[in-house]
């Protein structure tokens, strides 16, 4: 065991944990005041639900002994045999610490999806969805990429979870937004974000936590963590700038929400390539991400689905761009343990990245559809019309966010 790496990973794990409350604030500020607590809750409670699933069987399904490249078996259920010795995923940190680090990734992924059905889902439906989706979609896809499954096995690169977390949650969000339907008054009533200061604070916390997410994915306090750390910062900054530049050009004003959204789009896009690309490539990835995600969000109203907080536009599209960009900009000069991308003489990687991304999208869409269909039949996805008008805070939790 290496105490330096272990200390680094303990801190990185705590930083990734902080991203989920950060996400809660990021989302909470964007909804109307009557739904702020319910929205915060839908992210925050993933810290409870997913942590329990992770210990019970999730870690074993994601990282346990491989079954056909698709999922881990249940040998490590209840974290049986997962102790403080090093390995098998790292030679320098305790196995239990690796499990803790990965637990935080599992926590935030279903929380990301909650932005799609915000302001109208029943709390019970949210609970059921989080349990089923994490079990049937997240754990297998995580296994595909990092747990010895087929994507990691054929050379696909996903340093910190662009495919596992962002493409996966973005695809699920698209299905969820369509299946639960538009919020009452969509397209007629204005849906003003009720507290953009909260959203900006959330974006800042996410940004901070993302250093743990990306640099920590090196699993070691060294050169590769430094590469990922640096790429994370400049991609996010570049994307915040390019998002507001696009707004300025097309709509006349740069917005605070645009800066926050752009920063997150940049963080999403750099995630899969963060340990494989240099700073200049990271800036290009970020610049493209900010502009691309802005136009993706704009196209939502034309396509006619109500992805309330733009999970598809930011995480789906940003994640997809990031996966493909890794296939363009990855360089073995930066990380000898990675691969070269198209711009460094290896066109094959781009094809592998695209195939991995699309496989994940298709799997996530199909299974998410089935899960939501079952929940809709058994308990119903959506609150009643009256409850939606009154707001989820009061009707789902008997609380209000503000009493002024």
């Amino acid at each position: 065991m290496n105490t330096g790496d272990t200390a680094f990973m303990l801190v990185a794990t705590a930083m990734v944990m902080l991203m989920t409350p950060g996400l809660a604030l990021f989302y909470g500020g964007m909804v109307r005041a009557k739904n702020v607590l319910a929205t915060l809750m839908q992210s925050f409670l993933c810290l409870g639900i997913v942590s329990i699933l992770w210990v019970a069987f999730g870690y074993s399904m994601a990282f346990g002994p491989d079954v056909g490249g698709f999922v881990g078996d249940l040998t490590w259920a209840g974290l049986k045999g997962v102790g403080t010795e090093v390995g098998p995923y790292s030679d320098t940190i305790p196995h239990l610490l690796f499990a803790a680090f990965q637990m935080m990734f599992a926590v935030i992924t279903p929380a990301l999806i909650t932005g799609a059905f915000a302001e109208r889902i029943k709390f019970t439906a949210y609970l059921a969805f989080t349990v089923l989706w994490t079990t049937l979609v997240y754990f297998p896809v995580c296994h595909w990429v990092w747990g010895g499954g087929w994507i990691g096995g054929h050379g696909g690169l996903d340093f910190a979870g662009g495919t596992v977390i962002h493409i996966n949650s973005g695809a699920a969000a698209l299905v969820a937004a369509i299946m639960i339907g538009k919020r009452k008054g969509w397209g007629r009533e204005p849906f003003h974000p009720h507290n953009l200061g909260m959203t900006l604070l959330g974006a800042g916390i996410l940004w901070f936590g993302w250093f743990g997410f990306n640099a920590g994915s090196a699993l070691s306090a060294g050169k590769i963590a430094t590469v990922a750390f640096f790429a994370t910062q400049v991609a996010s900054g570049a994307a915040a700038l390019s998002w507001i530049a696009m707004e300025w050009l097309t709509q006349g004003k740069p917005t605070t929400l645009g800066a926050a959204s752009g920063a997150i789009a940049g963080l999403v896009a750099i995630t899969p390539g963060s340990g494989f690309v240099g700073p200049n490539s990271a800036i290009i990835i970020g610049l493209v991400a900010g502009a691309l995600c802005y136009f993706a969000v704009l196209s939502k109203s034309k396509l006619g689905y109500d992805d309330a907080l733009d999970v598809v536009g930011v995480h789906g599209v940003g994640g997809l761009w990031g996966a493909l960009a890794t296939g363009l900009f990855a360089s073995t000069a930066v990380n000898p343990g990675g691969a070269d991308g198209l711009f460094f003489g290896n066109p094959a990687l781009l094809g592998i990245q695209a195939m991995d991304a699309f496989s994940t999208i298709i799997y996530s869409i199909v299974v998410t559809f089935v899960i939501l269909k079952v929940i809709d039949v058994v308990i119903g996805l959506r609150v009643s019309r009256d409850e939606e008008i009154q707001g989820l805070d009061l009707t789902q939790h008997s609380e209000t966010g503000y009493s002024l």
Partner: protein
Amino acid sequence: MKKIEAIIKPFKLDDVKEALNKIGIKGMTVSEVKGYGRQKGHKEIYRGAEYEVDFIPKTKIEIIIDAGQVDQVVETIREAANTDKIGDGKIFVLPIEEVVRVRTGEKGRDAI
């Protein structure tokens, strides 16, 4: 007795209050209100979605005065709240039947 209700631009409240203080008006009730008239609303943009906001924030002042002071008070408010731009507001004058001071039970002019 009369009641003066004035809808003014929020940033003009201090000017109006001081001007009224100078002519001896020692009390008022103020509320934050929203509304629209000839001044158009404004546009807000959130992630590309543009919303027209019709109701603009204004401040409403309510003052109860003796009928003889009406012209002076109205003119004072008008001068203090004026910016020469659309949206400066309106002043209403209403009759008041009775005023009662809660603490003492005084009525009418004595209670103002």
